[in-house]
């Protein structure tokens, strides 16, 4: 059997990986602030003696689709949607600074401000902890104001500002914790001009139609590879029958 089967096999593994990435996008079509994955195939040339006829494919993640998702109005005062391409800084489980587009914020028991998936939200000076308050509000520039217990409702006090970071010019990559990190470490600069829309959430930017088309395409590509495998099998069979001694 010749090397063709291995080339096909590699392609099939890649297609199944791509199908998983498409399934992941589809599964997250309703996850607040989700950014779709872009997975593509790359040719991997196997240089060696003889004709360079073989190039196996290799699936790679190109990165996330950073197009904005649609805004959904919720009316909840702690829901924010980030305008433009800015990212909200959060603390990743390993303590480093990471970035996300989701803005469904919550206040934990200890007053720590977190996203709904549990990551502490950062200001320029570290994670934000809010003191006890009668009311918490966020303004369009990301400033958080509170009305202290018993305080005058007309005189909110600013306690912190969300760190809205600009990814412009930096290489950001989604890591295993599903948050964006600066490639090779480091932090993004805070963007003083970034704005948020309060009382709204940004939906996932997965394009369902695109995902369905990609899924069908991957299914057909898989069938082509299976056909190649059967062709290789037939070639092998006929080769073997030529070699057979007449009985």
């Amino acid at each position, binding site marked *: 059997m010749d090397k063709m089967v291995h080339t096909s096999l590699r392609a099939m593994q890649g297609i199944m990986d791509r199908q*998983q990435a498409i399934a992941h*996008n589809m*599964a997250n079509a*309703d*996850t*607040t602030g989700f950014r779709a994955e872009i997975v593509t195939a790359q040719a991997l040339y196997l240089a060696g003696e003889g004709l360079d006829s073989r190039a196996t494919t290799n699936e*790679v993640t190109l990165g996330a689709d950073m197009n904005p998702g649609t805004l959904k109005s919720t009316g*909840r005062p702690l829901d924010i949607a980030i305008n433009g391409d800015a990212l909200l800084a959060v603390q990743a489980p390993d303590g480093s600074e990471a970035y996300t587009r989701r803005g469904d914020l919550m206040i934990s028991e200890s007053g720590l401000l977190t996203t709904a*998936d549990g990551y502490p939200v950062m200001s320029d000076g570290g994670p934000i902890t809010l003191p*006890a308050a009668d009311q918490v509000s966020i303004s369009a520039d990301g400033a958080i104001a509170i009305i202290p217990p018993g305080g005058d409702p007309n005189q909110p006090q600013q306690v912190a500002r969300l760190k809205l970071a600009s990814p412009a010019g930096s290489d950001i990559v989604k890591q295993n914790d599903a948050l964006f990190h600066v490639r090779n470490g480091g932090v993004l600069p805070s963007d003083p001009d970034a704005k948020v829309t309060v009382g709204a959430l940004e939906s996932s930017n997965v394009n369902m139609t695109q995902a369905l088309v990609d899924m069908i395409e991957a299914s057909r590509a898989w069938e082509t590879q299976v056909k190649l495998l059967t062709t290789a099998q037939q070639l092998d069979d006929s080769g073997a029958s030529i070699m057979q001694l007449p009985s």
Partner: protein
Amino acid sequence: MSNGALQVARTGLDAQNTKMRVIANNLANVNTTGFKRDRASFETLAYQQRIMPGAQSDAQNEYATGLALGTGVQVAGTMKIDTQGTLQPTGNAFDLAIEGAGYFQIEMADGTTAYTRAGNFARNGEGQLVTQEGMPLIPSIQVPEGATNITIGADGTVSATLAGEAEATELGKIETANFTNPAGLRSIGSNLLVETGSSGAPIVGAAGEAGRGTLRQGSLEGSNVNIVEELVDMIETQRAYEVNSKMIQATDEMLQFANQQL
């Protein structure tokens, strides 16, 4: 045999199914006094790094970008959406609505305190103000037999004209409780909520003070479920469910094709 795409699509079905249940519960409570809608929030599951960026692709070359595959989605939790429900005038003297933040305190059968936004109170046999289930309001308010012109002020002061008297008598003062994180309260059914570690301790005091909303007599706070919003969410959830099941079907067909052809 475990197939990535199939398992990932399954997580999508699971999550959408849970969301549908939350929507169904919201819709079922569209006419429940003081009900606050829940929202299911999804989170992305961890990624698997199949190929690290910078790993050797052969002796001379490195992968410029790796292959990181996501493993699906899960429901991170549900969140109570604490927006004000619409006020419905009822004209009943014991119907109370809170305009703004705060909860009525209710004494449960085991002596612990529960909290509610539903202010449809009634008088029991002993003249005490109780919920529809008969659980007394805290602090206890006694309305004597024959009392007329019962008024409950915006700050919770209850007064009435007692039989044979011309002047109104103050019967007590309803206090409400507020929380640092009301979204952290846990629903226990019957419109009642209980304190949890996440909600923080109750801050009790007169209505209308320190951020607590004022009371309005003769009105009830309706459910804050918006039917149209829930229906749109339901259609969205249904479509997302369908697309995930399409993925399972497509992957199944791929594997079936390979099994038949080879």
